[in-house]
């Protein structure tokens, strides 16, 4: 409690001023914080001298503090001689026993002052002595009694003021509280009305007889009337009887039950005529003393929500009934949560059965880890949906290929939603298409084989001429063994060349195999040019160039496919030149950035091998340039070509992750430029390494119906250290193994033999001893594909004639398997 807050200080000051002018006594009231609330009649000696000089002013403050301290302890009047020689007096002011301020008087003397002391003081502090002494003379000298009675008077007076003030303040506070209370109530009422009117629901209150007590704005719209007009009336005043009865019935039901009652009802708003479906709750309302006030109603417009719900439910019905397969499963446990009819029908499971399974359980070709890896981009948010193919397994164990469209729907738990397409038909169509394509390409290849046959014949006849010539020379000089050996060696070389030639044409005409190996591109190019040289008219000049970097360049390729590409482009070039001109083939390596690669190719930047096939022919018309790679596009007559050549070329080049570019100037020539990614150093295999002669001591049975070949096989294998039994009869060979199944570690057999063929023999031998290694020698590899042979128990298939080195290696390979 602050003295200044409960007392009118101005009134008290005026009173004190009057008192000062009557008695000459100084007054002051100082609150407990040291604030001088007012002061009257202060002596010049204090104001002009003592409180003006820094040293004496400091004494004044010390004296004030000391006096205040004493007052706190004393109940009554405290008399104190100030440090500048005057008397001060203080008395505490208490209101209802609480010390709130101090009343001061002073600046007087109780005895006449010691003039010398003050003269000394004037000198010490440099005061104007006359003026100082004049001020001193104005200080009154009062009796103790006068002081005491004055103090008692003021002390009472101050207390009286305080108590009056306090009483007044209490009265004011009480009034203030009452006003605040009333304002708060009004505001609360306003807020409540605002709240009720802001709520988009209809709100109303009726008494037990159905008479409206209040309602909100939305409700006003229902009746098309203001609240003031509604209050005091019933439903029967606004709506038709039937609906009013319905409302009344529900009101009574809620009151009877003593708890909320809800129902849905269609109503028509009177203000604009729109209809709405309401979800209405009616609650009996009681006063604080428990007496029933009536029924409080809340009606919520659920028209839109109901519509949306119906849409959702129609949509889920459609999803459920759809014959497309739709699955929902927990993203953490992968357990099915919901699976639609289409999926259940195809799988043959019921929903209950499926809910016991996970998405992995019906994917026989996928482990949980693989699945998690596949869906990782969905889980970490990199992708919004993913598509992959796998298989689904039905309840009856059968499988069907599927394309899975998967997305994740966040929630607790997050769900995977999968739409599954049964792609059985698509797979079959694809397979048919591939077969058709393969057939066509094979047909095209056979056409090319026809073209090559001429060249083959030339090369082959050359070799035969060499062989024949050397044999005749050997016969003539049979008395000189070293000459005979020389001629036989030459025969052998020519013979191997012929064999390789046959092998090459067989490889070329064989059905496609996609195996790619690191190869030296130069070897394939040179080999192909050799083959072509005999085919193309001699009026076409071959101009072959290679840069030093391309000489050892290796690419990952299928040599026979690469050869097919080159033969295609070269024969096209010769055709375009009408059999006369220059066919340029050049090899180069270069670095390509992504910008150097045509947009339609996905090839990456890096080092490439460039093969240019150039001609000086008729060129390609600009309007045909875009179409030349289309299958069946040809400018040749129907008996000359299928139009598959360049389509095949491009398809092969793309299978090798390369690309093809073509530039052509009509009547000047055309350049096809092929690019293949070069193998990096670490991928390069040493091509053409030494083939060592491998030896052994195992027992081998050698079967060939040609006596000479049987003998030769025996001799070669014996040279290598093996213990060999040779026979010209496959039936005899079978008997030998039947009698002693473990007498031989390996059987090498010819394919074409009377009695049993090689394959038939192999089948019988495997029946006797399943682990017996068998090598089949054949003159025509495409009759027996290696894979088919392996199914008959044959370990290796090799082409005749075999050299000693090849024989030694293939035998060791069998033993090491």
């Amino acid at each position, binding site marked *: 409690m602050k003295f200044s807050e409960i007392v009118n200080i101005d009134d008290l000051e005026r009173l004190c001023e009057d008192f000062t002018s009557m008695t000459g006594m100084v007054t002051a009231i100082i609150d407990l914080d040291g604030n001088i609330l007012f002061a009257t009649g202060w002596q010049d000696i204090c104001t002009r001298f003592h409180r003006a000089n820094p040293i004496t002013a400091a004494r004044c403050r010390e004296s004030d503090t000391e006096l205040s301290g004493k007052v706190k302890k004393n109940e009554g009047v405290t008399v104190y001689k100030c440090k500048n020689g005057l008397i001060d007096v203080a008395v505490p002011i208490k209101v209802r026993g609480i010390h709130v301020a101090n009343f001061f008087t002073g600046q007087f003397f109780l005895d006449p002052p010691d003039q010398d002391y003050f003269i000394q003081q004037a000198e010490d502090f440099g005061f104007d002595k006359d003026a100082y002494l004049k001020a001193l003379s104005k200080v009154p000298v009062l009796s103790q009694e006068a002081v005491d009675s004055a103090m008692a008077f003021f002390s009472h007076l101050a207390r009286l003021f305080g108590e009056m003030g306090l009483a007044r303040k209490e009265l004011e506070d009480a009034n203030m509280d009452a006003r605040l209370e009333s304002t708060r109530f009004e505001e609360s009422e306003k807020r409540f009305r605002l709240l009720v009117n802001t709520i988009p629901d209809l709100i109303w209150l009726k008494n037990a007889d159905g008479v409206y007590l209040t309602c909100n704005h939305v409700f006003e719209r229902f009746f098309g009337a203001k609240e003031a007009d509604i209050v005091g009336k019933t439903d029967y005043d606004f709506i038709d009887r039937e609906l009013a009865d319905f409302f009344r019935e529900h009101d009574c039901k809620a009151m009877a039950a003593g708890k909320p009652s809800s129902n849905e009802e269609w109503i028509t708003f009177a203000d604009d005529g729109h209809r709405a479906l309401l979800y209405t709750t009616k609650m009996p309302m009681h006063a604080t003393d428990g007496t029933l006030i009536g029924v409080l109603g809340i009606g919520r417009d659920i028209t839109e929500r109901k519509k949306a719900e119906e849409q959702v439910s129609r949509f889920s019905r459609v999803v459920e009934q759809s014959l497309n397969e739709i699955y929902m499963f927990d993203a953490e446990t992968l357990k099915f949560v919901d699976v639609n009819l289409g999926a259940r029908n195809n799988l043959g499971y019921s929903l209950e059965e499926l809910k016991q399974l996970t998405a992995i359980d019906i994917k026989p070709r996928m482990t949980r880890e693989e699945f998690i890896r596949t869906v990782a981009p969905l889980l970490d948010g990199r992708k919004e949906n993913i598509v992959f193919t796998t298989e689904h397994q039905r309840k009856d164990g059968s499988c069907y290929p599927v394309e899975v469209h998967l997305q994740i729907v966040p929630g607790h738990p997050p769900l995977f939603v999968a739409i599954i397409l049964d792609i059985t038909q698509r797979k079959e169509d694809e397979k048919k298409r591939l077969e058709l394509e393969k057939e066509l390409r094979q047909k095209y290849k056979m056409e090319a084989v026809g073209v090559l046959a*001429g060249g083959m*014949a030339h090369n082959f006849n050359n070799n035969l*001429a060499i062989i024949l010539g050397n044999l005749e020379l050997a016969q003539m000089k049979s008395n000189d063994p070293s000459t005979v050996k020389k001629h036989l060696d*030459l025969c052998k070389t020519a013979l191997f060349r012929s064999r390789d030639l046959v092998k090459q044409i067989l490889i070329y005409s064989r059905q496609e195999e996609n195996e790619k190996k690191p190869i030296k591109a130069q070897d394939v190019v040179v080999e192909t040019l050799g083959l072509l040289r005999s085919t193309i008219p*001699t009026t076409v000049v071959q101009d072959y160039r290679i840069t030093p970097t391309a000489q050892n360049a290796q690419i990952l390729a299928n040599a026979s496919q690469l050869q097919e590409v080159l033969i295609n482009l070269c024969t096209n070039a010769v055709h375009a030149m009408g059999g006369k001109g220059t066919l340029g083939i050049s090899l180069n390596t270069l670095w390509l950035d992504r910008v150097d690669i045509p947009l339609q190719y996905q090839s990456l930047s890096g080092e490439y091998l460039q093969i240019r096939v150039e001609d000086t022919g008729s060129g390609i018309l600009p309007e045909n340039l875009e179409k030349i790679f289309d299958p069946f596009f040809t400018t040749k007559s129907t008996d000359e070509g299928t139009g598959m050549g360049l389509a095949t070329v491009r398809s092969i080049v793309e299978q090798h992750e390369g690309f093809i570019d073509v530039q052509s100037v009509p009547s000047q020539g055309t350049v096809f430029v092929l690019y293949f990614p070069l193998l990096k150093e670490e991928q390069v295999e040493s091509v053409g390494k030494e083939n060592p002669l491998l030896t052994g001591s195992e027992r081998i049975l050698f079967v060939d119906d040609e006596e000479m070949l049987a003998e030769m096989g025996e001799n070669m294998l014996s040279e290598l250290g093996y213990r060999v039994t040779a026979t010209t009869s496959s039936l005899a060979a079978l008997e030998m193994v039947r009698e002693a199944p473990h007498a031989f570690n390996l059987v090498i057999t010819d394919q074409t033999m009377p009695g049993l063929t090689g394959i038939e023999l192999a089948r019988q031998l495997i029946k006797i001893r399943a682990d017996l290694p068998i090598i089949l020698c054949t003159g025509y590899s495409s009759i027996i594909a290696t894979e088919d042979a392996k199914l008959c128990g044959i370990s290796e298939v090799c082409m005749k004639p075999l050299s000693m080195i090849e024989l030694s290696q293939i035998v060791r390979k069998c033993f090491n398997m």
Partner: protein
Amino acid sequence: MARVLVVDDELQLREVLKEVLEDSGHKVILAEDGNKGLKLFTEQPFDLVITDLIMPDKEGLEFITEILKNRPETKIIAISGGGMVGPADYLKTAEMLGARMSLEKPFSTHDLIAGVERLLSS
């Protein structure tokens, strides 16, 4: 002894022909294509020319034409393994161009020597 020019791009066949002809007592000069053969032919006298037809650079038919243009009386034997290549039968063409004889590879050395002797004595 006659001087024989043998032109063939197959090294080993050249060697066989050289030996066979030398064994029959002839002097044999070898060339690997038409250009080199033509050069030798203009520099030295030959009694007989044996030439392959399908060769790089200057092929046989052109070579025969040029030789006969210079010395129409030259005795030429055309040899080829090509037989029917495309629409043209090279050996027949060679004979039409003026080769006295043609041999299809592979041929027996007896046939060759017999032909050579027959031509040289005619």
